[in-house]
């Protein structure tokens, strides 16, 4: 039997419990038609990038399905009749991935970070004081020529030029 990845978006007004019931209801259809469900992932309530049937948010559910094509078609047909489902997509894949998908990984890493907290006031850094006199810059034409003539002592000869 072919493998499918199926994602559907449920209406925003539903509670997470209702969405779960919806998912089990659909997986029952697959089971009745001789298929199996690998895993179901609830991505939770996400913002939609654009409005779908006047919804701005939606509950995303991912299902990994191993079922004959007829079973999937039957499930899709029932889903399209259901008003709580606003979008669905099934994709045939070569193999189902068992680990949590990229979406769940991104979600958990975001939760791990936690609040950044208050870093507090940095306080007064105080007066930095007078930097003093920088002195005479010396003869500039000589200072530039000197480092080229001998590379080793370039920094020394330059500072000497500054002092003069």
């Amino acid at each position, binding site marked *: 039997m072919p493998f499918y990845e199926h*994602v559907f*978006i449920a209406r925003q007004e539903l509670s997470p419990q209702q969405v779960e019931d919806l998912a089990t209801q659909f997986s029952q259809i697959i089971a009745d038609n001789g298929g199996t469900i690998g895993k179901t992932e609830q991505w939770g309530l*996400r913002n*939609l*990038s*654009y409005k*779908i049937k006047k919804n701005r948010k*939606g509950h*995303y559910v*991912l299902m990994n399905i191993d079922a004959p094509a007829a079973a999937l078609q039957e499930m899709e047909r029932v889903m399209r009749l259901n008003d709580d489902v606003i*979008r669905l*997509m099934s*994709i045939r894949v070569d193999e189902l991935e068992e680990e949590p*998908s*990229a*979406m769940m990984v*991104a979600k958990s890493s975001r939760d791990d970070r936690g609040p950044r907290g208050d870093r507090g006031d940095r306080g007064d850094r105080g007066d930095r004081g007078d930097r003093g006199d920088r002195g005479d810059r010396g003869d500039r034409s000589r200072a530039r020529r000197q480092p*080229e003539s001998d590379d080793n002592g370039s920094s020394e000869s330059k500072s000497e030029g500054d002092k003069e």
Partner: protein
Amino acid sequence: MSDNTSSRSAPSRRRPFFRRRKSCPFSGPNAPKIDYKDVKLMQRFVSEKGKIVPSRITAVSSKKQRELAQAIKRARNLALLPFVIE
């Protein structure tokens, strides 16, 4: 000094706008897998208008670019990515 500078500027004179060719971000070891569910990854390959960025700019190989375009279009259909950003 004079022969020193001439040897340094020689390759740049042959190819005045030479830039090192970037390699494809999806090939080689520990390359990310192209997946429509990975919104963060997909987002790096769309412009600020929401268009798919050409591979000549992102240096994605043509095979991977086809896969990537497919994944971005799937993500758009699921409202994970926008079709247009106004």
